[in-house]
């Protein structure tokens, strides 16, 4: 199986990566090399009998007790563009 440039572009869009020009070809070739290798190996491994039920190791449960939130200033200090209360993004509605 070969993945096409269109597939690479679609996957890039899902990943929010701008892949264009020469880089599309490079990525396409490299991904194909990896996938080709994977396909060969995967095809030779019989996994028909493998049990897929999740392991029964229980996730720890936390008590429903309010803990102090982090100071807003500390949380927002790293935001590259922000107001006093929130980060800023380009408007998402018309």
């Amino acid at each position, binding site marked *: 199986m070969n993945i096409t440039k269109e597939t690479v572009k679609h996957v890039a869009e899902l990943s929010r990566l701008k892949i264009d020009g020469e880089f599309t070809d490079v990525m396409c070739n490299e991904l194909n090399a990896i996938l080709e290798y994977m396909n060969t190996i995967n095809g030779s491994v019989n996994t028909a009998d493998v049990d897929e039920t999740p392991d029964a190791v229980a996730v720890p*449960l936390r008590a429903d007790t309010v803990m102090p939130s982090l100071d807003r200033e500390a*949380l927002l200090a790293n935001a590259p563009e922000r107001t006093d209360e*929130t980060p800023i993004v380009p408007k998402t509605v018309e």
Partner: protein
Amino acid sequence: MWETVIGLEVHVELSTKTKIFCGCSTAFGAKPNTQCCPVCMGLPGALPIFNGEVLRYATMAAIAFNCEISKTSVFDRKNYFYPDLPKAYQISQLYFPIGKNGKVPIKVGDTEKVIRIHEMHMEEDAGKLIHSEYDNETYPDYNRCGVPLIEIVSEPDFRSSAEVIAYLQKIKSICEYLGISDCKMQEGSMRVDINLSVRKKGEETFGTRTETKNINSFRAIEHAIEHESARQIDAIESGERIIQQTRHWNEDKRSSYAMRSKENAQDYRYFPEPDLLPLVVTDEYIESVRASLPEMAESRKQRFMSDYALSDYDASLLTASLHTAELFEKTLSKINMPKEIANWIIVPLQKLLNERGKTLDDVSLDPDNFAEVISKVTSGKINRASGMEILEAMVEAGGKIDVDGYIKEHSMEAIDDDGLIVDTVRKIVGANPASVAEYKGGKTKVLGFFVGQVMKELKGKANPAKVNEAILKELSK
């Protein structure tokens, strides 16, 4: 003839004190980003820790919706980019949800029907986006990120908006009785997405469906269903094909529009959340939750019938919503008049609320106040019409007013002066000899005529019991 086929995805916000994966408060209405931490804001290196109370609430719901409960369920990541989702994935459940194959019985008119639940799972809520009115900017507020939700996915079992509304009211009632959510559509603590398709009656295969989102009230649900099924029928009848798409409902304009194609071409790439181990519940756990379930609508209805001698009809209406049942019982603890209270709730109060498009969620009627009004009427301190007027004022004021003050202000006190009542009765009786003769001739119906005349003379304010008594006395002379 066309048939509308509807399936619902209902999100219910759980009312735990803390978020699903961190200890931040879930309290409503805080300043933006003040109920956040590295976990719910998706800072690098932060990890989720699951809130055990969410599991308990979800298990309660799964039991109440008659679901099979998975002994081992798994959290999955749903991946998509949006500024209200700081990790760019939502922790949800897809492959192994907590509940499967549930059943919710509903009743529309006299017809009973069972709606099948495909699955029920737990997930985290996203944040809120605040849009600037002046600039081309949007401001993410992450306070709601990580508030726990359950999503209840039905099979496509609905054929009308009435069925949908009955089902949603049932879901809401169950969640309220369980105490796991307040289910307020307007505040977003209950959200409904409608999957709808149409087909010719008698056809077995489903048509292509659309999903309608952004519906914020029961009324809007009705509108959206009517609109979307009409839109699809029109399209098919004019030779178009229905496109599978997500549509955004606008209640103000009573119309919907298709979301951009990018939003329609989502590929969420679900996979098991590696930061959390599987969730294991034992039979003992499920049984302990079952044993601790609060009294639900059906058993409360039975109790109302046996303890208070109410009819099946009255008891059903009173217990359909927890708020109504609670108002009834709390009022009853003040004045022991079950039938009277039931009548007040079922007729005038319900009418007042319906006229305003409200329910007892929105108007939390004070039981003391309510009891006061009823007892003033039954004891003849005010007449029934004044009682109704006061009740209306209470609803308008959001549930509570100064009853005595209101009566005084509107001079509603009943005329209790025996002398005045007897004088008036004598005057009326004296002025209507023909009617007196009729009465004496056995036509007791004219009694009503005398009462009416006396009340009219006294501007409707006389204590009716006393008026009745005085007329009988006068006529028997």
